[in-house]
């Protein structure tokens, strides 16, 4: 969707009537830093960036864009790893970073009302004095915004026990494509009617603009204990994960890193990870003191049985924070050992972890690209980081092919192509492998109900049937697409 210079000028004029000059960026120089999000391999220059301060301005921007049929891509902190906030060449970026206020904290009802640009970790920091925290903790929690978390239904280390974003929010205020302000969900746990809150969570900016979020807060556990187990064999570590859960233990977090990831994370965090281990598991247990002590004994026994070469215990908060700091910074820390990496986000049933790891190692040799493995092992969410050099011609394409192979294997084993990072632009083609025509048709109908002209984040998350057909994943009869009446975007 290219845009004519006249349309561009007219659109900028309309936007300039409601925004201050510093809230509207339109020259290439200042647009350039917005051409990609956390996935810097995919870039598009938008026609403008709008940085509103008020909900009213967001409503006006939507009215203008709706009237002009201009694509709108919402952007929070721009830390996403699937290109969800990658601009549209004929559209604007709606930057929500200025909405960074915590509006209300209600410790009695365990909720907080926050603006979408508030950083995930800032919520926890603000409610810590009440001995509360916001449970979903993506590794980028220091920087990623809550609005983006809702849009991607983000997970994190603690989601194994405490659920994803969708399980930890109560209500949203959204601005529709036409510019209307709606509240969905409520402060009550159950709502009548269709679960629009569930629908919006993970909708990747394609149904509306999130302008306020009511999050649930979780009380600090009475006791927390962290175990770090080292393994000389990565498959043993994989088996240990499956065994812990199979024994009825649900840790607050159960994470795995392999040798390359350990080394990079240690360089940054100096957490005391054993560099000679092939893999480590970080297992956090929380609850009442009695429960924690009982579970710790049980877990240690399982880890030893599964071949852990040593186990380190971190009973106090400072040590725990240090051990988590390395894990949480593991992705970017890999920047120390490779100029670029391509982060995958597949899920698999836990029992297959060892098998998948073996296969990844095999693929690594075949593609001649190194892989650092960082997993939310407890919930079977893999994050293989494929290391490549973007300056070398053809390496990105090779990394992409390698990544697609891994995700195909995930789907084959009964898992999915994304655990928490979203589909965005990056994995859109693989959606054709995970969903059949009928399922995609339902997605399109939902999209059309909220955004009939398809101006909200077009081209992301849900592929057109046409695109899938081109990729050969859909049956096209006599050259005709099924349901030709369905809009394709």
């Amino acid at each position: 969707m290219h845009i004519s210079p006249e349309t561009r000028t007219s659109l900028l004029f309309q936007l300039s009537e409601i925004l201050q000059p510093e809230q509207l960026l339109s020259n290439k120089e200042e647009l350039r830093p917005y051409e990609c999000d956390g996935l810097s391999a995919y870039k598009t220059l938008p026609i403008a960036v709008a940085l509103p301060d008020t909900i009213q301005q967001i409503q006006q921007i939507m009215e203008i864009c709706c009237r002009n049929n201009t694509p709108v891509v919402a952007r929070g902190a721009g830390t996403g790893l699937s290109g969800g906030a990658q601009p549209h060449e004929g559209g604007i970026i709606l930057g929500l970073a200025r909405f960074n206020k915590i509006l209300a904290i209600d410790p009695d009802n365990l909720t907080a009302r926050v603006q979408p640009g508030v950083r995930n970790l800032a919520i926890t920091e603000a409610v810590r004095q009440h001995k509360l925290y916001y449970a979903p903790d993506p590794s980028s929690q220091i920087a990623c915004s809550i609005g983006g978390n809702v849009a991607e239904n983000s997970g994190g280390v603690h989601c194994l026990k405490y659920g994803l974003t969708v399980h930890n929010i109560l209500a949203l205020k959204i601005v529709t494509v036409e510019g209307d302000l709606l509240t969905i969900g409520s402060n009550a746990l159950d709502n009548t009617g269709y679960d629009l809150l569930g629908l919006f969570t993970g909708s990747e900016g394609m149904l509306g603009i999130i302008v306020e979020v009511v999050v649930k807060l979780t009380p600090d556990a009475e006791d927390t204990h962290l175990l770090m187990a080292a393994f000389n064999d990565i498959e043993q570590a994989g088996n240990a994960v499956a065994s812990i859960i199979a024994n009825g233990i649900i840790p607050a977090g159960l994470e795995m890193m392999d040798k390359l990831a350990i080394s990079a994370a240690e360089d940054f965090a100096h957490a005391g990870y054993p560099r000679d281990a092939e893999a480590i598991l970080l297992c956090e247990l929380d609850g009442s003191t009695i429960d924690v002590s009982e579970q710790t004994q049980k877990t240690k026994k399982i880890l030893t049985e599964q071949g852990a070469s040593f186990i380190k215990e971190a009973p106090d908060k400072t040590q725990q924070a240090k051990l988590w700091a390395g894990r949480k910074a593991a992705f970017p820390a890999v920047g120390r050992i490779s100029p670029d990496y391509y982060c995958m986000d597949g899920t698999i049933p836990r029992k297959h972890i060892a098998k998948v790891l073996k296969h990844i190692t095999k693929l690594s040799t075949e593609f001649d690209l190194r892989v650092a493995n960082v997993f939310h092992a407890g919930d079977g969410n893999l994050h293989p980081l494929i290391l490549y050099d973007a300056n070398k011609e053809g390496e990105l394409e090779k990394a992409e092919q390698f990544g697609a192979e891994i995700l195909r294997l995930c789907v084959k084993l009964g898992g999915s192509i994304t655990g928490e990072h979203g589909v965005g632009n990056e994995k859109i083609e693989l959606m054709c492998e995970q969903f059949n025509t009928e399922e995609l048709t339902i997605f399109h109908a939902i999209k059309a109900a909220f955004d009939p002209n398809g101006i909200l984040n077009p081209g992301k998350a849900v592929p057109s049937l046409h695109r899938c057909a081109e990729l050969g994943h859909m049956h096209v009869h006599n050259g005709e697409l099924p349901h030709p009446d369905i809009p394709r975007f």
Partner: protein
Amino acid sequence: METHIKKELENTIDGKLAKSILRSCVHCGFCNATCPTYQLLGDENDGPRGRIYLIKQLFEGDGSESTEKTRLHLDRCLSCRSCETTCPSGVKYGALLDIGRKLAEDLAPRSREEKKKRKRLQTTLSSPKRFGTLLKAGQLLRPLLPKDTRQKIPKKRLALECPTTIHERKMLILQGCVQPALSPDINTATAIVLDKLGISLIHHKKVKCCGAVSQHLSSEDKAITQIKNNIDAWWDDISNGIEAIITTASGCGVMLKDYPHYLREEGEYLYKAEIVASLSKDISEIIIEENYTSLPIKKTHKLSWHSPCTLQHGQKIIGYVEELLTNTGHTLLPIQDGHICCGSAGTYSILQPELSKQLKHNKLENLTRETPDMIVTANIGCQTHLQQGTEIPVVHWINLFI
């Protein structure tokens, strides 16, 4: 990150340095989370990740895209280097910014007015004599001035008497350019404390400014001249095995430690700069190694500690002063957002007054929330800047050891 430096810069020292730094950035955006200007302005162009991108354009593009807007976004950076502490990939942002600023100015030169303003600042601030005279005049007239201007002129602080004993252990001291006039008590307090610990200080009159002021005001040539002048003045003592070069302003300290970066194209001097950098120590690094608990402490206080960015992010000295103060009986109050800049940042408070004021306001709110007896810090810039906004005394922590 993918980086293709343009041909004419590809093989220059700066081009190579830019490439290696840009390639270490993975564009994760963690840095924006702890960037003071990104928090205030919410624009990617005003956070480290965006600035890195702007600098990338300077080194990659044909220059047609880079205008005074790039320069403005780079000017708005405080150089606090909080992003470096946050960055898991180890991106050397400060060094990149430094070479980026130079290129931005070449591509979009400043107006004559602005150049003049910077020149004036540079000549006034980096000369202790000129600055001292002006300050004295201001202090004399202080009672007659309107409140706004009055607040900007710090009250007179008295110098203490310097010890005269000569010890076997000797160290060099960099007294600084504005510090002797603004707060002469700091250098004398340092001399008194070190005297009690059996160390004498040597000050060379030829050494005036560390070079940071010129560097901030984009007169790199002047900065290099000052740096070389300082190295020359110290060289005999260094050759004779001086133990350390002490700084009591962390802003000067980080500059000394970065001398090799600034003299990266200066051949023989680069080697000398590396030695100076290795000998440079913040006063906290010296005291913590000595038997400081034996020093007589007159009175203990409830303190708010403001760690200057040049100490915690620039020199990566974290926890030293806290340890010194708590081990000598003082109470340190918890401070929210301790990693965020106070807005002083060298000449930033003069060149970017609006942003600086906002940061000062936020910082003082955090520092005074629990009503401390005094605020302690480790850099003359932060000290003067913060004192402008509060009645609570703001002092260098070394003063508590005399």
